[in-house]
């Protein structure tokens, strides 16, 4: 290796390299930082070398192995220079094709990145949404440089800042340049770097001054420093050498955590190469200036990121912080002046010094100049390192660059600043990112970790996680930190284990403030942040844990039990009946199902399966157990007579139920069992509510509904048909007839309107009216080309029903977001597509065209997804100029329903803007005494199973009301309590895939209403039941085995 004795020597060398370098040569750049290697980059590199070796020197393709490029979710990735083609998730078998194409000056279309929003392939890295919004001044250099080759760095303007600095007569001008840039410490505190340098330069000490690079990147969730150290170690060496020249430091130390082996290796190589070339050590570039850097490895202590603790650690002691002042700048390592800057701060120095402070300060905002690297991780689609100008909003980072949440999950918050930081809720995502704004929001910038959390993240668990971390990492010097973090952890643990009381919250707040106010170092002062910030923004979640003993994220085990059971609104024990199916006890299984659920056969067909979405098997990387299909298997096979509860003796007290849908009938049945006399008033001439009038028969055959309702009837219940509330009866008239309580469950039967001109012309139907006319009266309203507006189940039902009407030529469904966000069940969407329904996404109607009083068509506009709204979903934003017309003969509006509650308001009930009756969430009490309300009437359109749950709850509270007991009882966690022996598995038994019930092929079903899906076969069902992970056993193993047949059945136990 050449050693340079002058600044000129290095510059000539760079010119030589530049002259030799031909930027037109196609080069595969393979990202091989720790993330890349963990994803298989080494195998890709190896394959590339093998192919290139085989092709020989005639092949004009080059290879460059580099550090991380930032888009970790797509690792191992290959960038083809100079075209800048980006190949994501490349496997070793893809390499030959990529190289062949590169040789021809071509690309491999099929391996390109697919934009999840548009479905289009994107060739160039810079056009991809992940890269487009970034300003990659630091991280972008990684892809140019093989970190073990100093020539790559020099070729890319490396050590240019050093030569510029060394050429300055007055080293003070460098400090001025850094000050002018406005750079602030990227380690988190944001202290102006130039000011620090100025203070340090002013320290005159003949016996030595130290520079330290703080590479103890301890914040869990932050790894930008690792990426810079691994991918561009010379930038840190150069930054520190420039810093030493500017401030008169004599020795440098990089304090790096031992958990980063690749970074340490690359730093070692880089230091050696820099010394060999005369860029480090004695008499640098012959200028007489000397400075050298050594590496000190941290040994795994978070507190050592604090500067005084870090110094103690380098000195060979326990890393305990000490009181400041004196600040390290005056009295630091071995008592000498010491200046500590973070990795990212140092990496900015060569850029500022070589390109000038002004250019640097052009990025970012006043007081927050330049760029910042964030590690965008957690529940987000595009995980990776993101470098953006300061002042960008969280929304832009999370939504535009990060691509939002994966799948249908909803983003809830983003955690910034590591353990010392806090959680920022989605409602504050329009916050521009700066040191000050994050602080004001109760968090901090910290080193730049951004951990995205969705509805499957429990905020109390997150707070507990950080507290566990901090209590372990507290050095123990300050009592309030040592004991306070422990105690905060215990309090959170109590809440998580179901022992929380409202006083816990008061204590958490009080203690959190005490810890903040009475500790010495930054660790202690910020230790309570995770608790205080989650309490500030997610208090409801705490209260839910404490008051209802529920963890809605299904994270806290002692409040969740078996996730399938916890997820079920009617408290079914799916694990239990699945286990009984495995044993072949189908009747036992039926009793378990029916004891919790009044509509088992209906649920077996149309339940939205909250149990399956929470199944541990699904959450653990597999496919959830097909619980609903097993329920269908059981309910198809077992006669309902095996569970026929006898009603208690007539108490002679009357209750009125309005509406014979699932909520009303469930309440009526449950109350009748308790001995109340029930009269159900139904406006239509048939019972079933939405089950009959809205759900298509191919999903839910009519006889199933009839039979199920029939089995709920007994001598205590009578139904009066054709009696509508407000017309035929009023609450007041019922009360005067001796009904002591009224349960309102009239559903939500009014379709929402588009709010467009011409909406009332002929040919346009609200979806409910359209479905009712067909399902109840056999009328076919649709003809010609039918358009459906909406993306929910009702829209898909309407589309599939329209397809089955004889005058219809085609059906197109228009939805305003992407298919991923469609609220309809995935398999319904699939089935609709199979049958020939066209689905156009990211489209909104803006005009209705009419001719001669009849619908002619609609005008739509194309949308793109914008920021995340308060519901955690992306809002559709119309793209100006992208309007288009569609000719239609029929238009069905299925954008939602609202309760037709006009008459209720006139009877004196409080009703909200959406037409929903105001009722207490737990007690279902309305504004009128003795009148309760539930089902869709209270929630707006909701699922069948939620309606059943509401009916069950209504029966409980009405019984309590009529017997003069408190309406709410203290909550207890619902945990599995019956032991059923697990299945025995052969050692070699492989887990089978999820069972799929047979269904009619599209050709056999589109012209009729035959039920599409069949039940599982017995073999299928028995196999499927063996897939269950039996989460219940963790709670029941300790108990003596009970005979399953004799065990108490059902939800009674939970009350």
């Amino acid at each position, binding site marked *: *290796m050449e050693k340079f004795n002058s600044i000129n020597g290095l510059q000539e060398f760079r010119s030589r390299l530049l002259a030799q370098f031909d930027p037109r040569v196609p080069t595969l750049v393979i990202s091989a930082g720790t993330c890349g290697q963990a994803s298989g980059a080494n*195998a890709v590199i*190896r394959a590339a070398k093998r192919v290139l070796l085989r092709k020989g020197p005639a092949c004009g393709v080059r290879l460059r192995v580099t550090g991380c490029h930032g888009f970790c979710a797509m*690792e191992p990735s290959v960038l083809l220079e100079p075209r800048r083609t980006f190949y994501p998730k490349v496997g070793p078998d893809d390499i030959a094709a990529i190289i062949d194409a590169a040789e021809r000056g071509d690309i491999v279309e099929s391996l390109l990145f697919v934009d999840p929003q548009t479905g289009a392939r994107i060739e160039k890295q810079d056009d991809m949404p992940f890269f487009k919004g970034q300003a990659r001044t630091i991280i972008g250099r990684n892809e140019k440089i093989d970190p073990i080759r100093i020539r790559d760095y020099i070729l890319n303007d490396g050590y240019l800042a050093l030569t510029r600095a060394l050429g300055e007569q007055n080293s003070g001008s460098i400090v001025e340049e850094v000050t002018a840039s406005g750079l602030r410490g990227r380690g988190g505190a944001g202290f102006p770097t130039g000011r620090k340098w100025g203070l340090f330069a002013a320290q005159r000490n003949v016996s030595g001054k130290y520079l330290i690079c703080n590479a103890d990147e*301890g914040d*869990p969730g932050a790894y930008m420093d690792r990426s810079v150290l691994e991918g561009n170690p010379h930038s840190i060496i150069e930054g520190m050498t420039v810093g030493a020249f500017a401030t008169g430091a004599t020795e440098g130390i990089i304090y790096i955590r031992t958990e980063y082996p690749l970074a340490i290796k690359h730093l070692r190589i880089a230091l050696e190469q820099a010394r060999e070339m005369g860029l480090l050590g004695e008499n640098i570039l012959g200028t007489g200036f000397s400075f050298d850097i050594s590496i000190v490895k941290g040994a795994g202590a978070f507190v050592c990121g604090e500067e005084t603790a870090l110094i103690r650690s380098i000195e*060979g002691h326990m890393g305990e912080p000490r009181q400041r002042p004196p600040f390290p700048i005056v009295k630091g390592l071995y008592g000498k002046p010491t200046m500590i800057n973070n990795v990212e701060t140092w990496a900015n120095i060569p850029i500022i010094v070589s390109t000038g402070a002004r250019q640097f300060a052009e990025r970012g905002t006043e007081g927050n100049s330049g760029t910042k690297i964030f590690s965008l991780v957690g529940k987000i689609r595009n995980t990776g390192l993101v470098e953006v100008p300061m002042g960008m909003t969280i929304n832009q980072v999370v939504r535009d660059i990060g691509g939002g949440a994966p799948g249908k999950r909803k983003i809830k918050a983003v955690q910034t600043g590591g353990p010392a930081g806090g959680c920022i809720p989605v409602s504050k995502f329009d916050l521009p990112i700066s040191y000050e704004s994050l602080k004001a929001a109760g968090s901090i910038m910290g080193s730049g970790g951004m951990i995205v959390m969705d509805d499957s993240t429990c905020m109390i668990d997150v707070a507990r996680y950080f507290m566990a971390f901090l209590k372990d990492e507290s050095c123990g010097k300050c009592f309030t930190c040592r004991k306070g973090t422990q105690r905060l952890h215990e309090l959170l643990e109590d809440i998580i284990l179901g022992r929380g009381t409202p006083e816990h919250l008061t204590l958490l707040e009080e203690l959190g403030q005490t810890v903040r106010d009475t500790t010495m170092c930054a660790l202690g002062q910020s230790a309570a942040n995770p608790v205080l910030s989650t309490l500030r923004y997610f208090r409801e979640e705490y209260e839910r844990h404490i008051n209802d003993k529920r963890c809605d994220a299904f994270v806290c085990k002692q409040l969740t039990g078996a996730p399938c059971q916890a997820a079920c609104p009617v408290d079914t024990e799916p694990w239990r009946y699945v286990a009984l199916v495995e044993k072949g006890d189908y009747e036992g299984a039926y009793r378990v199902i029916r004891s919790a659920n009044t509509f088992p056969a209906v649920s077996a067909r149309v339940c939205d399966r909250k149990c399956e979405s929470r199944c541990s098997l699904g959450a653990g990387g597999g496919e959830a157990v097909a619980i609903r299909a097993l329920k269908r298997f059981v309910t198809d096979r077992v006669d309902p007579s095996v569970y026929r509860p006898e009603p208690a003796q007539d108490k002679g007290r009357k209750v009125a139920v309005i509406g014979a849908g699932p909520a009303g009938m469930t309440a009526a049945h449950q109350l009748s069992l308790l001995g109340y006399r029930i009269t159900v008033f139904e406006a239509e001439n048939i019972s079933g509510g939405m089950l009959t009038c809205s759900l298509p028969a191919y999903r839910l055959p009519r006889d199933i509904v009839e039979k199920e309702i029939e089995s709920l009837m007994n001598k205590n219940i009578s139904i009066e048909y054709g009696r509508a509330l407000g017309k035929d009866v009023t609450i007041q008239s019922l009360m005067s007839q001796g009904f002591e309580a009224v349960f309102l469950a009239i559903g939500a039967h009014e379709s929402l309107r588009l709010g467009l001109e011409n909406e009332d012309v002929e040919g346009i139907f609200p979806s409910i009216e359209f479905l009712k006319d067909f399902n109840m009266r056999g009328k076919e309203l649709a003809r010609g080309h039918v358009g459906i507006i909406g993306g929910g189940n009702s829209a898909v039902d309407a589309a599939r029903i329209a397809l089955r009407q004889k005058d219809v030529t085609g059906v197109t469904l228009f939805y305003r977001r992407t298919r991923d966000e469609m609220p309809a069940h995935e398999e319904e969407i699939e089935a609709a597509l199979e049958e020939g329904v066209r689905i156009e996404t990211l489209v909104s109607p803006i005009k209705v065209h009419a001719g001669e009083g009849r619908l002619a068509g609609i005008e739509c506009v194309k949308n793109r997804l914008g920021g995340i709204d308060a519901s955690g979903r992306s809002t559709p934003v119309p793209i100006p100029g992208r309007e288009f017309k569609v000719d239609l003969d029929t238009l069905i509006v299925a954008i939602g329903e609202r309760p037709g509650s006009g008459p209720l308001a006139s009877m004196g009930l409080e009703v909200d803007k959406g037409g929903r009756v105001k009722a207490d969430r737990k007690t279902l009490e309305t504004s009128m005494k003795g009148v309760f309300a539930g089902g869709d009437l209270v929630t707006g359109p909701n699922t069948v199973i939620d309606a059943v749950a509401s009916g069950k709850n209504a029966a409980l509270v009405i019984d309590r009301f009529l017997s003069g007991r408190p309406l709410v009882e203290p909550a207890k966690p619902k945990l599995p309590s019956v032991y059923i022996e697990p299945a025995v598995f052969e050692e070699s038994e492989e887990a089978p895939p999820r069972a799929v019930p047979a269904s009619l092929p599209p050709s056999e079903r589109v012209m009729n209403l035959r039920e599409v899906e069949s039940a599982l076969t017995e073999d299928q069902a028995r196999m499927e039941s063996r897939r269950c992970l039996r989460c219940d056993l963790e709670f029941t193993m300790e108990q003596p085995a009970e005979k399953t047949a004799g065990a108490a059945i059902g939800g009674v136990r939970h009350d």
Partner: protein
Amino acid sequence: MDTKDILDIIERNGKNHAGLIAILEEVQEECSYLPEEILRLVAKETGRSLADIYGVATFYKAFSLKPKGRHCVSACLGTACHVRGAQKIVEEFSQELGIKPGETTPDNEITLETVNCLGACALGPIVVSDGHYFANVTARKVGEILRDTREGTFGSDGAPEEHPFLIEVSCPRCGRSLMDSGTSLHGHPSILVTASMNGKTGWSRIPSLYGRFARTHEHAFPDNTIIQLSCPHCASSFQDGSRCVECGAPLATMRLADGNGVFRICTRTGCEGHLLDLGRAEL
């Protein structure tokens, strides 16, 4: 590890305070933990009290006072891994191995550890087993990781047998081939060079199968020493001043037979560090 080795370590890192952590790190690397008698020796040699040494040894997470197993599995519990279910992964490992984090299996094979953050947050949950990273780990992958760990078969390197990747080299000075088809290693011709150390000179064979660079020598050379590698035809040395990226020892540089770059291999016995530089010859 005998007393002399320990004294060497202490000597190398210096007896002043600052060297202590590095000393303990080296001891742990050798012994897999910090045995009491060595801590006593370190205390005596550095003049610090045993309590002081014990304080440092227990303050930092990287140090262990208990022996570790032959293999080490670390599950990351960083925030990003945590929100993606790392706790479940740890529980799965615990259950499979029948031990708690921080413990070693009774057969002394596997130690299970948790670590605060490995900095590969985008790929969480992350598990590192004997230095091999596993990304996006699910409970179902746990068994596979343990099998790989026990058998040392880490999938990410691929099976070289499927696509044999052969290196053919010649002397950079005289240009003559170094390949010896007469003696094959792993079923392929070997690379034959001259090796010498302390006046002992003999042949040395390197497999030509890329990635399998365990050498055999005519003379038994002690482990961890640097040997001179040279051309058997023109006797010129292969050392050209470049250094091994793994251990910093000099590299021996040979030319690829078709002139498409160079192949470098570490001259320290026991180190398998190597570089295959296609189309470029200098670092």
